[in-house]
């Protein structure tokens, strides 16, 4: 029994020392290498260290303790290396070594951008959404009824000249003419009509959208632009409320100390009507600045409310409308509206 056990023991010790170089030196830089290494030594079926442990009884009792300690040491080494290699792999993907040149530029991601009109429109709608306004949209091709008549523009009235209109079909037809909407106000009528089908005010809505004007194109006017319209109808709504919400709006867009004024004006669908100016500081101007018109507004005309079946004695409301381009141009200091529609990348990238 001595000699076979002796030779078995010698073989086991020899096997262990053969493994030493690989245990300490194997390259463990990939998940596959780590996995193979673990299987090679520790797997229950194929692991070489597992196998050597099973051979401990074969070793002579005198040598058994030393042999066992040697195997355990090898096992700890394997486990430590596995732990380190796994950690290193998960830390930097593949290697803990620094790249050769840390100063080489990174791989770029292309830069995109939102158009300044979108940015200004979002800014405007956000203010009113925070005050509980819904958002509605409507068609750009409108009928005369929604664009003019329902908004209290009488037929053959000079108020119709206030907005130069692109016509699509003449007024002789049944529907009273089809045109490109000149303002977002027709959506007021659509919203009111919709609500009144099966409900009552309160109505609190803003309407962003594209509108068209048949005007010569210049640095200050384009054949189309974008508006945001606002409408609030409820019991007890007053001009004072209108002033308050628009002041809140102006503070958000133009700063806490914005100076604004309301001056009487005329729109057929509101009465009383006002235009709102803000004071624009400009040291180059005499007086240190000037008043800049930012929007039109007023109390919804009773004719508009009654036209859609709302009791104008019970309910009052206000409406306002502003040009998004105008607000964008003021905020960003753009002096020519046409550049907004040219979409030169050198312009757009300034709004990334």
């Amino acid at each position: 029994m001595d000699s076979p056990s002796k030779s078995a023991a010698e073989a086991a010790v020899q096997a262990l020392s053969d493994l030493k170089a690989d245990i300490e030196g194997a390259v463990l830089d990939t998940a596959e290498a780590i996995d193979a290494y673990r299987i090679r030594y520790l797997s229950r079926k194929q692991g070489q260290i597992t196998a050597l442990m099973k051979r401990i009884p074969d070793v002579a009792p005198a040598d058994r303790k030393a042999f066992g300690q040697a195997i355990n040491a090898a096992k700890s080494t394997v486990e430590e290396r596995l732990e380190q290699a796994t950690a290193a792999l998960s830390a930097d993907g593949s290697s803990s070594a620094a790249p050769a040149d840390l100063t080489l530029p990174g791989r770029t991601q292309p830069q995109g951008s939102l158009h300044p009109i979108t940015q200004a429109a979002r800014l405007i709608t956000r203010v009113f959404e925070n005050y509980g306004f819904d958002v509605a949209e409507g068609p750009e091709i409108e009928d005369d009824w929604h664009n003019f008549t329902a908004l209290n523009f009488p037929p053959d009235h000079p108020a119709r000249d206030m907005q130069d209109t692109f016509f699509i079909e003449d007024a002789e037809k049944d529907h009273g003419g089809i045109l490109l909407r000149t303002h977002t106000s027709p959506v007021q009528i659509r919203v009111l009509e919709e609500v009144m089908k099966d409900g009552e005010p309160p109505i609190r809505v803003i309407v962003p959208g594209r509108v068209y004007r048949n005007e010569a194109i210049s640095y200050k006017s384009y054949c189309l632009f974008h508006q945001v319209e606002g409408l609030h109808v409820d019991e007890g709504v007053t001009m004072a409320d209108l002033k308050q919400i628009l002041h809140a709006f102006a503070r958000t867009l133009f700063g806490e100390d914005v100076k604004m004024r309301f001056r009487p004006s005329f729109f057929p669908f509101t009465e009383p009507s006002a235009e709102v100016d803000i004071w624009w500081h400009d040291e180059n101007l005499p007086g240190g600045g000037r008043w800049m018109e930012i929007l039109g507004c007023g109390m919804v005309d009773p004719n508009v409310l009654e036209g859609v079946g709302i009791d104008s004695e019970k309910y009052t409301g206000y409406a306002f409308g502003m040009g998004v381009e105008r607000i964008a141009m003021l905020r960003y200091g753009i002096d020519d509206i046409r550049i907004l529609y040219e979409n030169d990348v050198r312009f757009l990238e300034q709004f990334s």
Partner: protein
Amino acid sequence: MIISTNWLSDYIAHGLSDDALADRLTMCGLEVESVERTGNDLNGVVVGHVVSTGQHPNADRLSVCKVDVGGEEPLHIVCGAPNVATGQKVAVATIGTTLHLPSRDNPEERVPVTMKKAKIRGEESHGMICAEDELGLGSDHDGILVLSEEAVVGTPFPDYLSAKGISTSDTAIDIAITPNRPDAISHLGIARDVSALTGKEVCRPAVSIPETGDLVSEEFSVSIEAEDLCHRFVGILVKGVEIKESPAWMKQRLLTIGLRPRNVIVDITNYVMYECGQPLHAYDADSLSGNSIIVRKAKAGSSFTTLDSKERTMPEDALMICDAEREIGIAGIMGGENTEVTDETSNVFIEAAWFDPSSIRRTAKALSLQTDASYRFERGVDAEGQAWAAKRAADLMVELANATLVEGMIDVHPVPYEAPIISLRAQRAVDIIGTPIASDEMGRLLEAIGFGTTETQTDPAVWDVTVPSFRPDVEREIDLIEEVARLFGYDNIPEPTHSRIPNFTPGMATDRQLRERLRDVLAGIGFRETYTNSMLPVETAARFNDPALPGGRFGGEVVETLNPITTEMAALRPSLLPGLLRVAGHNHNHGQQAVRLFEFGRVHTKRQTNRTLVGDYTETETLMVLASGRWQEQYWEDDARDSDLFDVKGVMDRVFGAIGLEMPRYKQRDASDLASWGVDILLGKRWIGSLMRVSDDVADAYSLRHDGLVAELDFTALAEAAAAAIRPTFQAISRFPIVERDIAVVVPSTQPAGPMLEAIRRAAGDLLKKVFVFDFYEGKHVGEGNKSLAFGLRLGADRTLRDKDVDKVMSRVLKALEREFDAKLRG
């Protein structure tokens, strides 16, 4: 409308500076657009006496004058005017005086010139003898202005002028009159508001209105056939007028407000219109046939020559002024050439009438002829202002044109004015305005602008308000409330300190939410948002009205406007493509190699569909994505690469994924004029849009320098599909492992991968979580005409899959590929 502050001060001593006046007007609803000082102050211009004149030794056309201006010695002045003569009293601009002289290049423009001692052709000249235009007093430059004999030598010229009621400088205030203020289109109308603002009285020129009838009605008769369109017609006759230039003060005022003086008669009618707002017409009385005037409707299609010598075709129902034989004027718009005042005129018939605003507006529109008169009539002139205006003009003709007034007045007045009385509830005004204004204060404010008020009830207060004849716009209580608010001052309405928000929950429309999300996603992956013009030439619109694109897919016609600005913008876009191609071309031409753009916008087509809201039109929103040129820039370890189909497909995956949709399917289309190749983008069976490479013809037309890869999606369809995905529902996460298997097959090169992926999905069934192509190979290892495709499959279930489950799936997949595509497992 421009007003002259000098003129205004004839009627009201408001005591405000020009700027303060402009500010007060703006804040009461008469928006001042500009304030412009006109004229010269003429300091340094003095009255001189021409002591002697002599021929300039070196110039035939020049004279050398000695002019006494009250100094020790007469001034030596070289003068080029033909009319200079010894003994004249003249205006002399002395050395140091600055005049605003008409520019040589543009006589309308004035440039400041300061007088200096000068040598003109060798003769010294110490100043200038001035012509009318050089002094800003008129347009005459034919000779020097010769003053009246009694002018005192040495008197400052401004003093001389003001003694004659002429001011040397003036201020022109341009006011944007809103359509609801017909009362404010005149100096007296503005004065009325200034009076209400300042509390100062308005002083109207004294006019004694003659009795109706008398001598004039023996000479002339007026009859109104269209009484509904002409409520009143007043006529006054003056005889023996002297047709000449108007006096300087009148010409100066007309020039300040932008009117060109003509002759004293025409100028007076304009002057009175701008004074009180009532348009007048002056006829050469001797040219009126039968000494009668008839107001009636035109025969449709009849032609008439207006006093601007243009022959015009009358629209139906146009109101005409006629004499016994013929038409002599288009009522309220323009008189006729056949009866206009000429240099030979000696007797003038003055017309002042009230015409129906709508009728005037329709006719003016139909004729495309807006005049100062039609502008006022279509807004509504003072229903009671005709007699005053006619007599005022007659008085001025007597005073300034040596006319003789024929006693009496014709006043045909079939529809007398009845002043409306409107109830105003003080509480209602407070409820609208939002601040307590005392009832008495309301009465006072309304009285100040000419309304009559009677308190009919005190608690709560109710006023009966009588509307003055010059405010036809005021018809309802709300109109009165506006007047109260306007005069109270909007800036005096205090803002509440708290905000009342109704108990009302705003929703966020799905399409808006999706649109905003996609904007952020696209900007986040390097696309730039554009806004392009919706209007384009008809031919361009037709070219892009293509069935491959969402707009053209409706099969409708291009939408055209009836009155485009130019043919370049005569139609509405059926697609965002032309707009974006134009932007891409522009940017390529400006050195951009990488152009990646997107736009959301409405496209239009004429066809009734289930999306139609108005008429026969379908308006739908699309999203377009365009990539042309560099996709990847040159990098130190990678080469630059241009955009291709698979980049844009990747963007589509991103778009669909970002709004919770499954990946779209693609189906190849035939090439077309627009596209060298293209695919339909489908979601299940639903058509969502198309992706294409624009044809070389199109690319050339838009100067693209790289392939143009574009996708246009029907955003409405996309949003509908995504609506359900807006609020995702939770799916339990499987705690069982995923099994990954690969399969590589060889198929003919012509076999597309898409159907194979679908076959794998069908064959693998529920266990398949994902399938993807991870390798594509063509080459000698798979034989000529073949390719190899390798698919990765991820399988999973709510249990641990056993090898035999997985093997079964893989064998089904292989069988399907073999059967459907003649695929061979790659060894």
